[in-house]
């Protein structure tokens, strides 16, 4: 039985072959016990793209068993660092080779512009894989001098084992790379559950993993509904670690399930309500550009979306007028079209959610500066919307919207700005714009966020760690820090010179 489908893209006059089965042990297979399918939708046209197999709990079991077997035989401590490096680099080569096609599929399923998918999402993903390939043969422990007479004490940085990885729909390929690269670099095997909204590129990438030469069972891909696959991985007794990126609500459930089952290790990248602070000494033109980027990029569907901006009163009017210009300059449309700078939001569910927040903002008395009106045509579009006259207790100010909806507030003093910025249970990102270096030092120190941008926003680098404080998450991705999340330290005390006198006294 064939497990692939030809997806036609009329706008590009192209067809892409997409595998539709579950990827287990390097083969695409049907579910063992379920007829459930997942339908994938093009958010620009609201049309179904294709349907794929939805994994059941039993399928997850089989995938975990495959990952365990590989870990014990062909991966884990059975493969050298340089072989892992070689395979990761080969996979990077193949993704580079197929970048255009992957970008088109990503645009079709997620809605983002093709050129952004190709140059940013995929470009960064390729570099991410190469970055971690470079770490694979450099996993070092310590040799530790105790007393030079009795023992050889040293640590080994072992791979944790079988890792369940659950990724979101906002950057499907990029989130796949962030998870897969460090895990494979240190020798873990993977059961990956891509988002049920955007599983297609994960399946294509699985084909490339096989072509690169990863042994069967090292990477397994099991699209499924969150409450089925995500829950199964989080509570599985043979999964050693679960890594999740998504909402804080779901993150809690994952952590609970991990605790209740086998106390598996947990790392979480959750939501945010990240603030910009614009001080009077800031370059306002630049600050406005960064603020626009922060809320408009990827149609605001970014965990570090700068969804709150607080502006010092002395520059409030000037700044907001520049901001409005920036926001209005963005072309929002179908990701397959050349001119598009941002696409629709990913699904009907998100569309309803985001519009619900916009309505709530209006209802709670915030003022719409830009946007706020639904389009009459097809597609889950939300044009960038800016609210002013906000108060701290408004839903649009407290809760993560995950769309291009910005709340703009005002402050007088630095202390007030910091207090407003930190007044949230989240702590993922923050930006501050100021030309006063001492202020930059004070404020960057005071902001309770895992990433603070000074006179910039949202630009990440593969070798700089990323993650949340407070309820935005546990653990770090990117940089050398990510390796720790997939490593388990063993200390070995090898006695060569100590003899025990018994009894001791």
């Amino acid at each position, binding site marked *: 039985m064939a497990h692939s489908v030809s997806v036609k893209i009329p706008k590009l006059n192209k067809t892409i072959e997409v595998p539709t089965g579950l990827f287990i042990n390097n083969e695409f297979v049907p579910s063992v016990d379920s007829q459930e399918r997942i339908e994938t939708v093009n958010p620009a046209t609201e049309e179904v793209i294709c349907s794929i197999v939805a994994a059941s709990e039993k399928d997850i079991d089989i995938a975990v068993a495959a990952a365990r077997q590989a870990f014990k035989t062909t991966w884990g401590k059975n493969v050298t660092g*340089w072989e892992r490096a070689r395979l990761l680099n080969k996979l990077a080569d193949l993704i580079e080779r197929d970048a255009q096609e992957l970008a088109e599929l990503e645009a079709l399923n997620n809605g983002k512009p093709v050129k952004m998918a190709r140059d940013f999402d995929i470009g960064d993903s390729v570099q991410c894989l190469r970055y971690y390939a*470079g*770490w694979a043969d450099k996993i070092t422990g310590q040799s530790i001098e105790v007393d030079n007479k009795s023992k*050889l004490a040293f640590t080994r940085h072992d791979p944790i084992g079988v890792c369940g990885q659950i990724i979101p729909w906002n950057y499907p390929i990029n989130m796949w790379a962030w998870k897969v690269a460090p895990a494979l670099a240190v020798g873990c095997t993977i059961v990956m559950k891509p988002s049920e909204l955007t599983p297609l590129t994960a399946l294509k990438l699985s084909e490339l993993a096989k072509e690169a030469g990863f042994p069967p069972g090292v990477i397994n891909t099991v699209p499924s509904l969150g409450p089925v696959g995500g829950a199964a991985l989080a509570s599985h007794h043979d999964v050693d670690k679960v890594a999740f990126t998504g909402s804080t609500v779901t993150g809690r459930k994952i952590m609970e399930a991990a605790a209740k089952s086998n106390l598996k290790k947990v790392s979480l990248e959750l939501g945010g309500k990240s603030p910009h602070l614009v001080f009077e000494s800031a370059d306002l033109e630049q600050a406005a550009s960064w603020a626009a980027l922060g809320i408009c990029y990827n149609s605001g569907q970014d965990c570090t979306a700068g969804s709150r901006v607080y502006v010092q009163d002395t520059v409030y009017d000037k700044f907001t007028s520049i901001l409005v210009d920036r926001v209005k300059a963005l072309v929002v449309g179908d990701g397959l079209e050349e001119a598009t700078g941002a696409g629709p939001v990913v699904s009907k569910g998100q569309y309803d959610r985001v519009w619900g927040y916009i309505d709530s903002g209006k209802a709670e008395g915030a003022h719409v500066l830009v946007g706020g009106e639904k389009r009459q045509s097809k597609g889950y579009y939300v044009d960038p919307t800016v609210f002013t006259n906000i108060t701290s207790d408004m839903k649009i100010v407290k809760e993560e919207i995950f769309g291009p909806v910005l709340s703009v507030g005002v402050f007088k003093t630095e202390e007030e700005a910091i207090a407003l910025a930190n007044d949230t249970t989240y702590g993922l990102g923050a930006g501050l714009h100021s030309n006063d270096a001492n202020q930059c030092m004070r404020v960057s120190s005071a902001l309770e966020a895992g990433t603070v941008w000074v006179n910039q926003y949202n630009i990440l680098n593969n070798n700089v760690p990323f993650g949340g404080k407070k309820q935005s998450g546990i653990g770090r991705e990117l940089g050398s820090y990510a390796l720790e999340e997939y490593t388990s330290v063993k200390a070995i005390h090898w006695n060569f010179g100590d003899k025990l006198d018994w009894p001791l006294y």
Partner: protein
Amino acid sequence: MPTHLSYEFNTPVYKGSTSFETGLFIDGKFVDGSTGSTIDVINPATEHIITSVSEGTTDDVDAAVAAAQRAYDTVWGLNASGLARSNLLWKLAQAMEAHADELSAIEVLDNGKTFGWASSTDVALSINVVKYYAGWADKLTGQTLETDSKLLAYTRHEPIGVVGQIIPWNFPLLMFVWKIAPALATGNTIVLKPSEFTPLTALRMCTLINESGFPPGVVNVVTGYGHTVGVAISSHMAIQKVAFTGSTLVGRKIMEAAARSNLKAVTLELGGKSPNIIFDDADLEQAVKWAAHGLFWNHGQACCAGSRIFVQSGAYDSFLERFTEKAKQIKVGDPFDKGVDQGPQISQIQFDRVMGYIESGKNDGAKIHLGGGRVGNEGYYIEPTIFVDAKPEMRIVKEEIFGPVGVVIRFEDEEDVIRQANDTMYGLAAAVFSKDINRAIETAHKLKTGTVWVNCYNNFHPGIPFGGFKQSGIGREMGEYALHHYTNVKAVHINLGNVL
């Protein structure tokens, strides 16, 4: 006209052709030396001239340094991100992979090592070393240091600048990449002098470096003699660091010149007289094999050769018998022939030197247990040679021979053998063979050498550092450790609020 080599290989183990520029490689171009003179490159298997390559002079070194400085100030150094350097090194590794057999063949022609060894070890390890350092280039982190809330203090690990590198003839390609890879990963530009005996693979690499996309001036190669080009590099006022691999004798001169000129930083990989200690309880079969590899690999032309083999008396007779058998099985012959284990020594000078030591051993009263003579009458071939009944004061026991000549010494007492093993001005490597791992570890920790191999010999890995104690050298190559020697640490203190 800068020189050029075209060569057709038609041998039992390799058929193919190569054609490449062999002029000096300065600022991305191949040029003639300033005097137009050339150096003959000799095939040690036949003693015939392979080709002539351009000879570099002091003026050429000046030109190379100027090119390297210009590149450092504009397109390399702090102007190229770690990611960019990583990508270029990666491309270079891929280019080497695409031309692996060709590189092996050139190495065999120039150096005389067998094609089997060149391809399975020299070229393979070289590629892995380049890949390894490609992976470091974007991972060079300094520290942030907590002091008080108004001070932002951090270190930067910056490149040094223009570095001079002088490499030997025993592993031409391998030594080339051991030097350039960490230097490039950290952002330095290079003026490198290959050995005048073996410049060919270094020059072939220059074309690959161009093809990989390294900007002109980042890597410069000036072939020439030690007393001209080597001296020019070690005493150059604009070269900030010199790295040398070769004899201890020359290493001293390099360091002196560095001190006299501009106090440039110096790293040295020098000679050795490495002890291989085989206890009674060793796995004898394994010990014999490793000992043979330890001594005879690369025709004994390895700085870490296990040239003093200490065997505990209980195992002595059995070891000597089996070791001799093993040595007899070494087939010495044309390195391009099938089934050959050992090719010629590198040159007439080295041949004479090694034969001189054999003579001295005989004159001093040591007994030749195996070998001791030339093989054939064309090519610098020497028989695998084993001396016994040697005394500690003999030259063959104290001095580095650098040929397929070893001394087997009987010992009783563990403490005494450790004393004898350490009784040398050298300290490069050592090995311990014993099935009692506690004893092996304790012994290993007492040996004053930069590398100790336990139950193995000549094991190399790009991630494991290598270098000498005492007069075997200064600094380490390979691993993360090599990066320290190509890095200048800058501490930055940014006062953000402390008012005086």
